[in-house]
């Protein structure tokens, strides 16, 4: 299975979806940045064309004019569709060009990935540890696949920044626009993840081919199928998971800082939060002035603050601990003081997570696989090769009828093998087409007498046998697979 053929398509869809998404969010800020729906087709078309062209045809020797003409072929129709208005043309043209360029980058990278085999060559494949180079994740950032990760994450981050900006400015999308945004977001996420998984498969295939590894032919198919399942599950998780539950938001932190600062400079009063402002933590009243209160509410609030500070501190320490842990490769004995505390906090968090996972794992009862042999038998008996036979085929009579039956049954999957005797074939025929019927026995006994005895069949006997054979022939002709009657 050629994975490369679908990767430019994924890259094109992802690029178009991201650019479309960005354009839609941008349009929320200004009506000038509005894009018509038909531009989606241009974005997708230009991205696909650019990615495929770069992946398959573009070389360093391709004239620059060709690339310009290629881009112009997409921009020209847009100019006509916007009514030849340069101001209206500028934004759609800009988006299309960006989309075209982003997809071009992906296509070029795919082309480059394929040339790894050429660059390494046979000698390289035998001297360079291909497992280390291709299969381990160490140094992933420096490897060719890092391009796709950077591209996907950067694009996603850009869209997220736009979406967050819109969210914080209370610019709300609703109705059809919301649906469009969700569809485009889902498409971008799905195609982006599929692109990452597919590119990884493509890169491994290239290196495996170079190292002449014996890759299971079913691997790409199974890979893509499992990848699709994982992408679907991931998206479902992302859509179903709760959001906006954090007690510490940018606003809260801002207010806390403001409160601390106001205390330090003795500000008379904190600015009140807007009544409609989210999150709800800030809407619980004006808590800060109550800090000095000795009432129950004040104590609770103080405890909450302390808890919050402890939580934030623990998170920060754990994050710092993680970074230090990675930097020191787990050798925490070399650390002292706060860094050591940070790593210990990280280790405690990690242990806790692992214990939770282990507990979850124990809850699942894993049943052994039944009825599946690890080492199945080595195949079945193969039909023997036909060998020469000097007998000329009979044209009529019982023998000819047997040949007709064998031919018809052969079409239905019951081949008359050369190493089978007629009687054995008759038994097989009975098993498949005529369970519990004597007609087969009657015919084949008659056949045996006709074929092997000195006297042969008398006229009446032959008629009876022929009648039985004709009945068999008709039954075999009419047989439609799973039919088994008594």
């Amino acid at each position, binding site marked *: 299975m050629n994975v490369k053929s679908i990767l430019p398509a994924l890259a094109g869809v992802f690029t178009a979806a991201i650019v479309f998404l960005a354009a839609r969010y941008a349009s929320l800020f200004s009506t000038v940045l509005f894009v018509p729906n038909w531009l989606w087709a241009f974005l997708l078309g230009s991205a696909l064309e650019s990615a495929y062209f770069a992946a398959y045809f573009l070389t360093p020797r391709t004239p620059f004019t060709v690339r310009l003409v290629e881009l112009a072929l997409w921009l020209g129709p847009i100019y006509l569709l916007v009514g030849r208005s340069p101001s209206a043309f500028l934004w759609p043209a800009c988006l299309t060009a960006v989309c075209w360029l982003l997809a071009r980058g992906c296509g070029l990278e795919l082309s480059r990935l394929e040339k790894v085999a050429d660059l390494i060559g046979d000698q390289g494949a035998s001297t360079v540890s291909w497992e280390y180079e291709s299969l381990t994740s160490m140094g992933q950032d420096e490897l060719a696949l890092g391009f796709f990760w950077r591209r996907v994450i950067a694009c996603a981050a850009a869209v997220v920044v736009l979406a967050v900006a819109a969210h914080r400015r209370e610019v709300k999308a609703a109705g059809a626009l919301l649906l469009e945004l969700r569809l485009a977001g889902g498409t971008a996420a799905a195609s982006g993840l599929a692109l990452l998984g597919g590119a990884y498969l493509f890169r491994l295939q290239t290196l495996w081919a170079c190292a002449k590894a014996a890759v299971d032919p079913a691997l790409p198919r199974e890979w893509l199928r499992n990848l699709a399942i994982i992408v679907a599950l991931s998206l479902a998780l992302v859509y179903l998971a709760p959001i906006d539950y954090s007690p510490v938001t940018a606003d809260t932190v801002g207010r806390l800082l403001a409160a601390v600062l106001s205390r330090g400079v003795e500000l008379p009063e904190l600015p009140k939060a807007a009544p409609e402002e989210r999150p709800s933590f800030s809407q619980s009243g004006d808590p800060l002035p109550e800090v000095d209160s000795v009432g129950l509410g004040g104590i609770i609030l103080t405890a909450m603050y302390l808890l919050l500070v402890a939580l934030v501190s623990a998170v920060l320490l754990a994050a710092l601990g993680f970074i230090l842990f990675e930097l020191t490769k787990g050798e925490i004995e070399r650390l002292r003081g706060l860094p050591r505390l940070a790593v210990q906090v990280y280790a405690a968090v990690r242990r806790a997570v692992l214990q939770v996972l282990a507990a979850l794992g124990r809850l699942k009862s894993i049943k052994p696989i039944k009825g599946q042999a690890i080492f199945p038998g080595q195949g079945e008996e193969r039909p023997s090769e036909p060998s020469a036979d000097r007998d000329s*085929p009979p044209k009529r009579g019982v023998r000819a009828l047997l*040949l007709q039956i064998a031919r018809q049954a052969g079409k239905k999957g019951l081949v008359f093998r050369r190493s089978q005797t007629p009687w*054995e074939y008759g038994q097989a025929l009975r098993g498949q087409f005529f369970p519990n019927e004597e007609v087969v026995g009657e015919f084949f006994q008659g056949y045996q007498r006709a*074929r092997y005895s000195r006297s042969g069949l008398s006229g009446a006997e032959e008629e009876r046998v022929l009648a039985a054979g004709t009945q068999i022939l008709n039954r075999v002709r009419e047989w439609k697979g799973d039919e088994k009657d008594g």
Partner: protein
Amino acid sequence: MDNAAAVAEFGQKMLYNIGSVLIGKEKPARLLLVALLSGGHVLLEDVPGVGKTMLARAIAASIGGTFSRIQCTPDLLPADITGLSIYDQKAGDFVFRPGPIMSQIVLADEINRATPRTQSSLLEAMGEGQVTVDGKTYVLEQPFMVLATQNPVEFEGTFPLPEAQLDRFFICVSLGYPTAAEEREMLYLLQERHPIHDLKAVTDPQRVRSLQQAVSRVHVEESVGEYVVRLVQATRSHPQVQLGASPRGSLALFRAAQALAALEGRDYVLPDDVKEVAVPVLAHRLMLKADSVLRGVKGAAVVSALLSQVAVGAERVEDMGS
């Protein structure tokens, strides 16, 4: 009654008679009848105690013939088999004392424990149907059948039969252990008195001789004969076989198929008859290569594989076109 029907009736009577003594051994008994009707001898490869002697005695009793048993040991002399001339001091002349070979059904137990020379004297009698003692030739009474046994497991202190002598055995049969049900039935059958003592003859040697002649007249269609030849030739070119079956092997296969057809009441041979007797007739005649022996390949497996490869030559289905 035609010849085939007479043979079939004989077979049924014999099998019934043998079945009253030996439980669950119909297939080996049929093969022994095939050998008897073909005038051949039988090699029984099996462990002790599975009924080899009883089978031989039952056959002898059923045909009303004489029976004798030779327990082969390394110090067994040829004269112990053929008989010897003893000097009668009173008469002042040599008197021939016949050996056990002079019976019609002879059981040579553990033949591979006898020395090669003793084996040769036995096999010579089997091949020629006569023995020569002190320059005088004694023709053995027909029907004459030797049932030799050998233990396939033990090797120590044995003199395995050379290939040329194995070839003289018409078929090689294994009785095998009975099933649990058969064994239980056997226990109750033998609870008081062994039924072999009450076994009555169902025919006589003269009748057996005439049936042997009848069997030789069973029709073998040309394609079946060619199938026999193809099978035997295939044993000679098989990659795991050092020495394939001899022409004596193809003749034995031909005759065994005739006998089996007659026992089935047919006066013509089917390829199925050839297939049924191919393993017992051919397997012991093959000399396998050393590496095949070490791989655990058996002659029976080679013949079985050939049966599923060699064309029967019944019809050419592809000639009908599609």
